[in-house]
Each structure stands twice: as structure tokens, then as C-alpha cells.
């Protein structure tokens, strides 16, 4: 084993590689993820490469070349990697070097040497050069050679794409320790904060990127994540938002300069318009108005204008609404209701736009937390989420052997059973004979699992019967209110409604539980007045349940075992 691959000598970072932007991050000694700025001072490094007289420009410098040197500038290439030429959508790359077919893959015809001739450079080579520059920036910052990384990928990235990316990374001197999914990295970035509390929750990660939007619904159960549904869209994008601004300013320009050409019909005019509109969009995320100013936009005419946020919100309205529908669609695809969603994490550069957070937030009940800079002071910069998650994961597995990582990732993940129903106990209700369902373990929790809960007993104490049952969640629509209010109606026909008196988790308040199969009964005798009972349940991968009931402060207790219906799968 060479020194490069020795886990002890490894320097690992997190890399988020996007079509529009890439970023790099590392984890400090104290376990805090820090995003690294490149030599231009950019934390969001444009995924652009440009060649001028044989010199390679990268990031922001390359992006600026889109005006004067568009055909030797390569951009928006991530999604071309490991793909067949006919399956790619080259729209985004229209203004830069065009992708061409090269054997079975994709290449760009660019003049990347001092010689006056065009070379066909494959997308794999471009990726590798891009990663090499990222690696260099990180190495310069850290003062030691970076040798390994955890790289984020979209959830629908195929194995062919991953292996192409792995190869390109190797070429760039980076050993990819693991590919992790972008939305999961975003959740990890939040959960790894020291003040974060682990809970069982449904998290939706809505990533509004430049060339694509991805939404993932994730069940987070005690820090273990399961993706329930994903939605990908290539129509509702940040580039479309830029387009909205481009159209607006082009029209304003034509109004003021009646005889001028439309800047959208001039290649350079269009490129300048586009760069400036993206800058305006970013400025509008921070300030309530922004200046648009381009020197010699078209036909030698300078153009300056201003726009306020209200106007932009109006212009982008359709796209914001479409994005919000996309999020709802993903929730539906997971067979959930907006009421089930505890948190929405907005990711991607366009999540900085306050109106995006407002529109998505409006589609969900008030109980849902929207994590975006404009709605939550503790929100993390949406552009940095995936890379922070990757850096955290990199620090966790840095010292493992590659073989170890592979072994404990693949077979481990696929075989985990998840509960199809919530499991809980019946708590006291108005009637003494029946009870209200109090969930202890939510549905979609991976097994094995152990959970403990404390439940109240009848006020007068005495002997208590504890029933363990399955429950399913129902959404009760109380009219005329579109959704059930927090205060419950005492005289409602349905008496198995809200369980707020014993339950502290507010996400359950507006849902109702229907009691399913009863699993077991147990008796606790002689409970003190106002006593509480601690319930601990262990569910094995074989669906066997081991339950322990004990009065808080009391001794002894009752324990019981319910045999699993599924035979334990051997010793495997």
C-alpha cells in the first residue's frame, strides 16, 4: 500500500460537485465543518474551465470568459459524465463550448493548448481537471496535500456516472472514500451541529439548483436516514429565474433604446446579460433592491437599471409556485401528508431567495419548520449544506480502510427492514376501558430499534393495564376549518382524536391515530397516585419485540417477549 492510500496518512475533505457550482470543505479539529474558499475568495466555485492561450482558468475567472471566449469555456458538464451522448440535454451548455459525441461518451472541442488547433477533450478529462483545481485549492488552504474526499451526488446518479466520477477523481489524485447523496448530506449538515437534537422526524430536502431541482423526502429516525421518495425536475431551475430577469432587463433596455438590437439576440450581449442577471438575483436575496449595470451591453450602449425585490418576486412567481408544487408532489409520492413533514431544508443557491422559502412555507402547516436563511435565524447557508455534510462524513470515515467502508455500506444498507406501522401504547383517555394511542416508534423506522417513553397512568393510581399496539396515522379534516386545529373539540364524534395531553411532540397534534393490531397486554400492579410508567421497547430485525414496563421510581417491573413473525435471518 502506498503512502497515498494509507488511511493514517489520509487528508480527506468534502467535495460538492455541481453543474453550476462546486465547493470544498474540511472538518476542524473540534469537529466543525468549514467551507474552504479558493484563491479567488469564492466559497461557491463556479464549475467552469476556460482556456486562454493555453492557460487554464478555473472557477469565477473561467466564468467571466463566457463573454469573450465562450467556445473555449466549458460549463455545466457534471450531468454529462458517464452518459451517452444521445441521453444528455445540452441546453445549459449552449452558451459555452458545445458537447460533441466522442466514441460512446461526451467531449468538448476546445483550444486548450498554445497551438492554434482544437482538441477533443472528454468530459471525464474536464471533470478530472476541475477536481484537480479543487484539490489544489483545498491543499493550499490546509497546507497539506489532500488525498481523499467524500463526494456528494444527486440521488438519481447511476452507477455508471459514479464510476466515471470515481475514475476522474482518481486521475485528479483524489481517492473517493464514499459517494453520498446530496439531500442526505444536507440533513447531516444540520444534525451534526452541536445544538441539534436528534429526533424522529420526516425531513424534506428541497434543492433548487441552477440546472435542476431535486426534492427528497427522508425519514430521520434517531440519526439514521432513509429516503422515502425523490423527485427531480429540469424545468424549474435557477437558470430559469435568471431568464426571467434577463427578459425583464432586455425589455427595459429596448424601451430606452428604441433602435438598438435585442441584447438576447447578440451572443456577447446575451452572455453579459446573463452574468449580470445572476448577480442581480443574488443581490436581491440580500437587499430589497439591486442595480443592474453593464458596460456596452449591445451596440456599444451602456445600460443601468434598478429592480426591487417585489418586482422580482412577481416576475418569478410562476417558478416559485412550480417549485412549491414539486415539494408537495414529493411528499405525496412518499405517501405522506404535509402534516407529516417536520422540517423542510431548503438547499441550493436559489434557496437564498426569500420568496422561495415563503412560497414553500405557505404550502405547509405552521408546525413545519422551514430551514432557510430568511425564515430561520439558525439556518445554515443553503449553498453550503451538501459540502458540509460531505466534510463531516469524510472526517468520520477518514481513518477507515476503503475495504471497510465498502463492506459496511453496501450489504448493510439494503437488508434493513423498516416498520410499516407505528408502534405505541394505549394511554389513558376519558374512558377507562379504552385508550388513546401514544406512538413510541414511528412507521418507517429501521430495525433493530430501541425506544423508551414515559406515559401517564390513571390519576388515582392502582393496577394498570398496558396494551402495546400498532397504529396508523390518519389525517382528520375537520370542517369548516381546512385542517384540524390544535384545540380539540370535546364533542367530536371521533373519540380517538388528538393525543395532546400526554404528548410533547407537536408534530403529532394535528394527526389522528387509528389503533391497529393489539400486540400484547401487560399489568403493572399498585401504581402510586399520579405515577408514571416507563416503557422501553426493543424491536429486533426479526420483528421480535422485547418490552419492559416499569413504574418510574419503582422497582421490578414487567418484561415480555413477542416472538417475531419473520425468522431471524441466520447469523448473516
Amino acid at each position, binding site marked *: 500500500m502506498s503512502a497515498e492510500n494509507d488511511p493514517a496518512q489520509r487528508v480527506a475533505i468534502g467535495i460538492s460537485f455541481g453543474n453550476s457550482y462546486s465547493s470544498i470543505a474540511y472538518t476542524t479539529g473540534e469537529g466543525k465543518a468549514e467551507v474552504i474558499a479558493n484563491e479567488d475568495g469564492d466559497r461557491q466555485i463556479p464549475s467552469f474551465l476556460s482556456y486562454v492561450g493555453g492557460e487554464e482558468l478555473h472557477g469565477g475567472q473561467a466564468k467571466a470568459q463566457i463573454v469573450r471566449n465562450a467556445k473555449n469555456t466549458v460549463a455545466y458538464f457534471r450531468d454529462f459524465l458517464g452518459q451517452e451522448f444521445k441521453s444528455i440535454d445540452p441546453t445549459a451548455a449552449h452558451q459555452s463550448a458545445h458537447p460533441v459525441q466522442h466514441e460512446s461518451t461526451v467531449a468538448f472541442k476546445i483550444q486548450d493548448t498554445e497551438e492554434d488547433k482544437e482538441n477533443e477533450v472528454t468530459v471525464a478529462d474536464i471533470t478530472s481537471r476541475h477536481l484537480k483545481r479543487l484539490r489544489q485549492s483545498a491543499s493550499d488552504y490546509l497546507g497539506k496535500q489532500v488525498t481523499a474526499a467524500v463526494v456528494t451526488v444527486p440521488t438519481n446518479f447511476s452507477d455508471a456516472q459514479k464510476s466515471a466520477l470515481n475514475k476522474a477523481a482518481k486521475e485528479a489524485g483524489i481517492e473517493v472514500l464514499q459517494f453520498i*447523496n446530496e439531500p442526505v448530506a444536507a440533513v447531516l449538515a444540520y444534525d451534526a451541529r452541536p445544538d441539534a437534537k436528534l429526533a424522529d422526524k420526516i425531513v424534506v430536502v428541497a434543492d433548487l439548483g441552477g440546472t435542476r431541482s431535486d426534492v427528497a423526502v427522508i425519514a430521520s429516525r434517531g440519526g439514521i436516514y432513509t429516503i422515502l421518495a425523490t423527485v427531480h425536475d429540469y424545468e424549474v431551475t435557477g437558470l430559469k429565474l435568471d431568464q426571467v430577469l434577463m427578459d425583464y432587463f432586455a425589455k427595459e433596455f429596448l424601451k430606452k433604446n428604441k433602435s438598438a438590437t435585442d441584447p438576447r439576440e447578440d451572443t456577447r450581449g446575451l452572455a453579459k446579460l446573463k452574468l449580470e442577471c445572476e448577480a442581480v438575483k443574488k443581490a436581491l436575496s440580500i437587499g430589497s433592491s439591486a442595480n443592474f449595470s453593464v458596460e456596452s451591453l449591445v451596440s456599444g450602449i451602456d445600460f443601468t437599471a434598478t429592480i426591487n425585490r417585489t418586482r422580482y418576486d412577481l416576475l418569478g412567481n410562476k417558478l416559485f409556485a412550480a417549485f412549491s408544487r414539486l415539494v408537495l408532489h414529493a411528499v405525496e409520492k412518499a405517501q405522506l401528508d404535509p402534516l407529516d413533514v417536520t422540517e423542510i431544508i431548503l438547499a441550493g443557491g436559489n434557496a437564498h431567495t426569500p420568496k422561495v422559502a415563503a412560497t414553500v412555507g405557505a404550502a405547509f402547516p405552521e408546525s413545519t419548520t422551514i430551514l432557510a436563511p430568511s425564515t430561520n435565524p439558525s439556518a445554515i447557508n443553503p449553498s453550503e449544506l451538501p459540502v458540509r455534510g460531505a466534510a463531516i462524513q469524510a472526517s468520520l470515515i477518514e481513518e477507515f480502510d476503503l475495504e471497510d467502508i465498502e463492506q459496511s455500506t453496501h450489504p448493510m444498507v439494503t437488508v434493513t427492514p423498516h416498520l410499516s406501522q407505528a408502534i405505541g401504547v394505549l394511554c389513558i383517555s376519558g374512558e377507562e*376501558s379504552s385508550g388513546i394511542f401514544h406512538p413510541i416508534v414511528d412507521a418507517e423506522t429501521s430495525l433493530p430499534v430501541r425506544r423508551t417513553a414515559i406515559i401517564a397512568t390513571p390519576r388515582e393510581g392502582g393496577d394498570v393495564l398496558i396494551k402495546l399496539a400498532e397504529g396508523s396515522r390518519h389525517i382528520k379534516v375537520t370542517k369548516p376549518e381546512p385542517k384540524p386545529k390544535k384545540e380539540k373539540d370535546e364533542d367530536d364524534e371521533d373519540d380517538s382524536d388528538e393525543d395532546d395531553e400526554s404528548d410533547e411532540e407537536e408534530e403529532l397534534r394535528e394527526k389522528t391515530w387509528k389503533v391497529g393490531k393489539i*400486540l400484547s397486554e*401487560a*399489568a*403493572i400492579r399498585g401504581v402510586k397516585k399520579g405515577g408514571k410508567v416507563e416503557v422501553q421497547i426493543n424491536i429486533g430485525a426479526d420483528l421480535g419485540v422485547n418490552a419492559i414496563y416499569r413504574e418510574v421510581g419503582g422497582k421490578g417491573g414487567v418484561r415480555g417477549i413477542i416472538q417475531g413473525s419473520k425468522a431471524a435471518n441466520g*447469523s448473516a
Partner: protein
Amino acid sequence: PVLPQGWTAEKDFKPIGSLSAANDRNIEPVGHHFLAHARRKRHKRTFSEDDRI
């Protein structure tokens, strides 16, 4: 609920049903809780055994 009169069971515990079939899903191999899970699974340890170590 209150214990009904005459309810008895061996050691005060009476199993009645078993869990509905589980769905097999992929969990994401990310985060230290996953790593702990992987470690338990590879060494075939239970939660309480893991706590003791």
C-alpha cells in the same frame, strides 16, 4: 387503562399478536449513528451489549 378485574397472565405479560410485515428499505450509509449501526451489525451485537463497551 385500568386493569380489568380478573385479568391474569403468566408474569403479568400476555403476548397477543405479532408485528405486521416490515418493508425492506435502504438506509443511508451516512452519519455516526449509521456507523454505530453498521458496527453493531458487523459484530452482531445488541444495543445493550454495545452500551457496555
